[in-house]
């Protein structure tokens, strides 16, 4: 049903224009939400959308292969969330030379080739988490980070944004350890339990993505330390939303995954038509907790 349109001039030939979206991931709910947003925009603006992403956010090479194959399909525009901007340069250059507009999304592409960027500032978002953590634990004590990845941009930024914010503003808060669970819930849960067991005076834990945060929540639940530890998370997912509602987790920072996908494809559709697009589309990040979780503005960005 969904074979790629052949030929260069789809836009003119009456066939639907085709936007190939290459994301950073596929299986996580976050990326599935981006995909949903992209597809919604596809329907709305009459463009065909394909969406794919590598198995892990470490696999730069696999993503480059996907981007290269996407280019072979002669898309009318490309949406791209770079795992590593530099590594993608040759493929992006090719897109440019073939006049295929590139829309960067998620954390952005460090290059002037993309005509627009629909991104969240991961570092900024992590700083929001840090502020709330600090506030919740009263500005002092030990905290730990369960991160999802050590090498990917999002993994690093969400860790560093948090660490930097704490170091700058809260000298009395000590980050005792940063450990990585690969975003795997089970692994993160085991990991978080070990951290808690190893640091009896721990005040809080921050999980840097959905899987990590849910893992931390599981750990706290399993240890029955609901009221003793402050959990701060990232993104959403049903388990995390439930935890926030029930008070196991204090709150989390959410980006707007649906909006990211939507804005990316929207910009692509505009570019294909030759309309001008905003260079920077800030898809924002906001804090949510049990109090504002059902606010319309927040709820729109949460996924189960």
């Amino acid at each position: 049903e969904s074979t790629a349109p052949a030929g260069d001039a789809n836009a003119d030939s009456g066939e639907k224009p085709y936007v190939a979206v290459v994301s950073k991931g596929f299986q996580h709910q976050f990326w599935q939400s981006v995909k949903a947003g992209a597809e919604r925009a596809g329907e709305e603006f009459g463009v065909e959308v394909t969406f794919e992403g590598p198995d892990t956010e470490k696999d730069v090479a696999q993503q480059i292969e996907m981007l290269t194959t996407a280019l072979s399909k002669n898309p009318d525009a490309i949406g791209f969330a770079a795992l590593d901007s530099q590594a993608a340069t040759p493929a992006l250059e090719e897109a440019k030379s073939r006049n295929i507009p590139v829309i960067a999304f998620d954390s952005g592409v460090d290059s002037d080739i993309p005509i627009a960027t629909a991104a969240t500032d991961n570092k900024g978002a992590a700083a929001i988490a840090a502020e709330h953590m600090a506030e919740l634990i009263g500005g002092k004590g030990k905290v730990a980070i369960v991160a999802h990845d050590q090498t990917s941009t999002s993994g690093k930024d969400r860790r560093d944004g948090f660490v930097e914010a704490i170091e700058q503003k809260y000298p009395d808060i000590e980050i005792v350890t940063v450990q990585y669970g690969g975003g795997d819930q089970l692994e993160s849960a085991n990991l978080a339990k070990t951290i808690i067991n190893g640091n009896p005076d721990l005040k809080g834990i921050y999980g840097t993505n959905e899987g990590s945060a849910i893992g931390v929540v599981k750990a706290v639940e399993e240890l029955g330390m609901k009221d003793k530890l402050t959990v701060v998370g990232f993104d959403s997912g049903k388990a995390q939303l439930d935890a926030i509602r029930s008070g196991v987790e204090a709150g989390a920072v959410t980006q707007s995954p649906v909006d990211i996908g939507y804005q990316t494809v929207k910009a692509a559709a505009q570019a294909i038509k030759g309309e001008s697009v905003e260079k920077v589309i800030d898809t924002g990040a906001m804090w949510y907790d049990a109090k504002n979780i059902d606010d319309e503005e927040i709820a729109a960005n949460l996924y189960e």
Partner: protein
Amino acid sequence: MSNTTTERPTKDLAPKPDSGGTASSEFVLRLRSRMQQLMALASLVVLVIIFGLINPLFLTPNNLSDILLSTVVIGLLALGATFVIITGGIDLSVGTGMSLTSVMVGVTLTYLGLPLAVGVLAGVLAGAVMGLVNGLLVSYLRIPSFIATLAMMMVAQGLALVISGTKPIYFNETPGFSNLALGKSIPGLIIPNAVFIFFIAAVIAGVILSKTLIGRYTYSIGSNEQATALSGINVRRWKMWIYTLAGSFTGLAGVIIASRLNSAQPGQGAGYELQAIAAVVIGGTSLQGGKGSIAGTVIGALIMSVLTSGLRIINVPQEWQSVAIGCVILLAVYVDMLRRKDTSEGK
């Protein structure tokens, strides 16, 4: 658990004919097979002590109970893998296969709203069916197990995503489900059910492997498949059942992980297979087939989780953790090798 084939009752040894020091050499053989497990156990104890010395918090009952809990999933996968590996095969499908079975539990309980017991059964059954398919591929289509189970690994991964619609399935409608793994049925004990389930499964696996017909054939197929076939054993059919049996442990692992996460996560599982196989091999089971024990596998799985947890609790930076795990695995296996020291070349 007392599950090696090398153990057997002493009483009924037939009279031995023209042998020199019968009783003593019998005893030596017995002792050696005990030693094998003692040594692996010793590695485990040494590790626990070392971590305990570096950080006493490692030895708190809570942490030890957590380590046991964290052994369960890999441990269950390793139990199944032990059977396959003893036949001389390998099973790469256990990781994503586990995800697929947990999705099947989700479909049964959440989508279809069937009772808890049915869901558990569905998970184990799904695993068994997957194992059966592996077995058919390996024995009747004669596809090397590495390839058959690699393909199954990919297919299971894809099907888990397809069936779940690429999103987690939650079990909020089946309230008792998460107690399956995390409940503490034995009053006063902090050890959760999952650990007991694992140990019961291990005992069952051990008994099957050492005391039943399918266990015997598992060893004999691994020792010499052709000779076994020529001895009038329907090797293909038995192999098929062995893979099916192995698959049901994968299924059980799928049930437990679903219960523990209170959700079926379709995207996870890749990479678990290597950990499970590592646990099996650390436990002294030979990838050449013919040799191995469930007790060894349990110890191997414990070594893996103690190592992971210990390195974390003593705050070894993540990047050094994998280096350390690699080295300790080498060391553990090397010590094991030394013990067996069959050092003559060409042997």
